[in-house]
């Protein structure tokens, strides 16, 4: 398949030329933009110039900066490795759904003599008071560490 005819047609685009005098003006425009860039440098150019100026004023050999950076990196790695890992407290949440009324739960107590006295209190969440006989949330049980001298153990 010869593409010569297509080549000849596309080649005609070379006749599309910019307005007369464009090339002469182009150089003037280039100089104008360069001057504008010098007068209003971009933020990145300013930052680069300031940094290079700062380093040249310090008169410190370039290797010193590299060395300092390397020391900083090694020190931070060492600190990270030396820091003991702290155990984060684990939180367990288990929901308990009673299968039968609490009063009917059989209680078998063995070795009663060795048991420490505790008090047991049943707290009903204020927002979930039973309405119409249905309980939305199960009651929570608090085992209190203080001795329950005036309470009979295991009495509800």
């Amino acid at each position, binding site marked *: *398949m010869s*593409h010569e*005819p*297509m*080549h*000849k*047609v*596309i*080649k*005609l*685009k*070379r*006749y*599309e*030329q*910019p*307005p007369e005098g*464009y*090339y002469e003006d*182009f*150089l003037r*425009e*280039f100089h104008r*933009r*360069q001057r504008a*860039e010098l007068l209003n440098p971009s933020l990145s150019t300013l930052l680069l110039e300031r940094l290079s100026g700062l380093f040249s004023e310090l008169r410190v050999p370039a290797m010193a900066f590299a060395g300092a950076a390397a020391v900083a990196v090694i020190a931070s790695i060492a600190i990270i490795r030396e820091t003991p890992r702290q155990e984060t407290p684990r939180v367990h949440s288990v929901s308990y759904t009673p299968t039968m009324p609490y009063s009917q739960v059989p209680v078998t107590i063995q070795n009663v003599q060795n048991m420490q006295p505790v008090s047991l209190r049943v707290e009903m969440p204020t927002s979930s008071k039973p309405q119409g006989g249905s309980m939305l949330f199960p009651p929570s049980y608090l085992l209190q560490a203080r001795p329950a001298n005036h309470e009979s153990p295991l009495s509800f």
Partner: protein
Amino acid sequence: MTADLDTPLNNDKELVARTQGGDPGAFDELIVKYTPRLYGLVYHMTSNHEDTNDLLQDIFSKAYRSMANFRGNSSFYTWMHSIAVNMTINFLKKRNRRQHPSLNDPDSNIENDPDFIAATSKGDPTKEVSIHELQKKLNAAMQKLSHDHRIVVTMFDIQGVPHAEIAKILKISEGTVRSRLFYAHRQLQNSLHEFKKN
């Protein structure tokens, strides 16, 4: 078919050396020399005169800032064209679809070009196409091409850059240049089928 900037390459070396030595006048000479060719390259890629002007200013500005890094591993011609191609393709990717053609008027000499006469009338006055109609159709067909295909058509068909030089500029093999040209021409033939049998 050779690039018309091939011959004075030695002069480029001297101008580059003078620019690197701090002579801004030498870079001005390079701008004057390369502006028409690079203008064509960018214009035929963008089909927009204003975009081409802004982009060309940025291209020369970047080249000037990078002159210290130019080691002469390739010719200045190749290096300069590579910058122009990369910046133009990046620009086109950002511009994406929001393009408004701003076309230059074709030189009046086109009317005397035998290829133009053959393409537009084909000896049949009823099928005569005006210059502007042809220009619109050519540009529409060019814009349908992918960036990779459009760049090889621009350099080879319009600017007459040899395959080997295009390969160097685009950093691809000559075989890839020929293959891209083949597929681009085939696509152009579909878009411009009315001009194909001249």
